[in-house]
């Protein structure tokens, strides 16, 4: 028994953990600081160094402690908060308000986000054009760069994007951690298919109206980014929907259920990302030989991606975002990161090391800009 645990132990010695962190250290140094940190503005230089250290300390601890989720979540949640801060700060500085005006729409100055992608597809195929008032290539959050980032992350990580790349996911991830125990313990299984229904609805309505309907009418994250100026009954209704969905699905339900309810029950991009789990090389596998069917993993999974039937069948569902919570919770190490083609229960450390490197590198570099920006803003307030 001890022998089994020993061979599957994910913890590494201090020295070995440092060694594993070295490639991340060097690559993030190049990508975050550009190879030479610039201290001409001391608070910006300091913010850059702090972010560089933060990501590397978190990555080191993933190896040293052998746990994934809590270190991942720290960066994931900071990413979500800092992105909202950056956007709101920009809006208030430039426009003196969190809302965008008709002129911003007419001049195509709305920052693009990956949640628009499902609605772009049909019009792009049939009208050879993009139905979004943003910029194709220039400026902050332009359409081309966001499409490239999402596409690569989705090919590589599959739905892992929803725990390692999305700058919204950290909101409900964060709120789902507030209570120690859930108040609402069970939610009907069928609800987890809801994002596919939302996906179908927004894809069709967007094509018919030639408008990104999810952004215009539903997206809860408008409440923490930017939304249309309230000038009419229609825009007031929209603002009401954004705020209620944010309050309900991103704050209240995650606190009550300890689950990421917005990502589980609403987001249409989450549905597409789930399908991409079929092609990504990284998976979460169940070694039925080691599993004692305690179902701790089912209990902790924040995305309703595991059921007791899945465990008995030895398969994780396509909703899995590779957050690592179940992997950390399993005392038998029966559920683990794996690689497509490699049988469950084998090469666990190898698979985990590769997955952590790839997914964490993506999150670290993708999030660095907005976290530096936020820290810079806070440092300027203090000094």
């Amino acid at each position: 028994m001890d022998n089994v645990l020993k061979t599957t132990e994910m913890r590494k010695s201090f020295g070995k953990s440092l060694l594993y962190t070295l490639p991340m250290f060097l690559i993030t140094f190049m990508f975050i600081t550009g190879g030479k940190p610039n201290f001409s503005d001391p608070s910006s230089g300091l913010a850059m160094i702090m972010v560089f250290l933060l990501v590397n300390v978190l990555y080191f601890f993933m190896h040293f402690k052998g746990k994934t989720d809590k270190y991942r979540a720290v960066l994931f949640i900071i990413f979500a908060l800092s992105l909202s801060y950056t956007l709101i700060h920009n809006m208030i500085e430039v426009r003196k308000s969190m809302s965008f005006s008709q002129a911003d729409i007419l001049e195509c100055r709305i920052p693009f986000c990956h949640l628009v992608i499902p609605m772009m597809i049909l019009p792009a195929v049939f009208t050879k054009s993009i139905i979004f008032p943003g910029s194709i290539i220039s400026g902050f959050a332009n359409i081309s760069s966001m499409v490239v980032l999402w596409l690569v992350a989705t090919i590589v990580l599959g739905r892992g994007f929803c725990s390692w790349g999305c700058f919204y996911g950290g909101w409900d991830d964060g709120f789902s951690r507030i209570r120690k125990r859930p108040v609402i313990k069970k939610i009907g299984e069928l609800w987890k298919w809801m994002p596919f229904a939302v996906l179908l609805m927004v894809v069709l309505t967007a094509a018919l109206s030639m408008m990104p309907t999810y952004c215009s009418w539903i997206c809860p994250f408008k409440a923490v980014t930017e939304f249309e100026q309230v000038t009419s009954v229609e825009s007031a209704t929209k603002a009401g929907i954004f705020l209620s969905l944010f309050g309900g699905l991103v704050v209240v339900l995650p606190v009550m259920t300890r689950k990421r309810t917005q990502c589980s029950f609403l987001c249409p991009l989450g549905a597409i990302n789930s399908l991409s789990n079929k092609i990504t090389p990284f998976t979460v596998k169940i070694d039925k030989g080691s599993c004692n069917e305690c179902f701790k993993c089912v209990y902790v999974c924040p995305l309703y991606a595991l059921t007791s039937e899945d465990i008995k069948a030895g398969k994780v569902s396509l909703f899995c975002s590779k957050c690592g919570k179940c992997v950390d919770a399993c005392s038998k190490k029966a559920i683990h990161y794996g690689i497509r083609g490699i049988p469950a229960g084998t090469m666990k450390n190898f698979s985990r090391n590769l997955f952590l490197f790839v997914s964490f590198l993506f999150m670290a570099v993708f999030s660095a800009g907005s976290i530096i920006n936020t820290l810079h803003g806070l440092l300027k307030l203090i000094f």
Partner: protein
Amino acid sequence: MKKAKIIAGISWVFFCLILIIILFPGLNSFSLSVSKLPFMKLNPRYTGGEIADKIISKNCTLVIRKPVFNGFLKERNSGFEQLDWHGTIPEIIKASIDYDHDGIKDFCVLIDRKNSKTVLDPIDRKIKGVLISTPTSYGWAVRIGLIK
């Protein structure tokens, strides 16, 4: 078979590893390539339509765009006509527009910038009202609703 699957899986992983490493340094050039794809252009419903005409007067230019009726699979029955004023714009803007080039004015629009008031005289019955009238970074823009 098992071995082949393992080799394929590991090769796929290393390909993805390289993809992630080159993603950020290559982001600008990847994005540029994506931006050149045939569908990567904004729909006229967002750009306001192609420029049809320009009327230059003193320090101000009026840009008249082609009417936009773009729909998903076919043109729609309702659309809009966008007018943009660039440059130093007078307090009161007045324009009579023949958007379909049939030699007859289709509508007159009068904008009082100080009070943000826009008055439309819809001469043609295809004119359906003011959709948007707003100051912009370049001056002022108006969208007039149309039906076919």
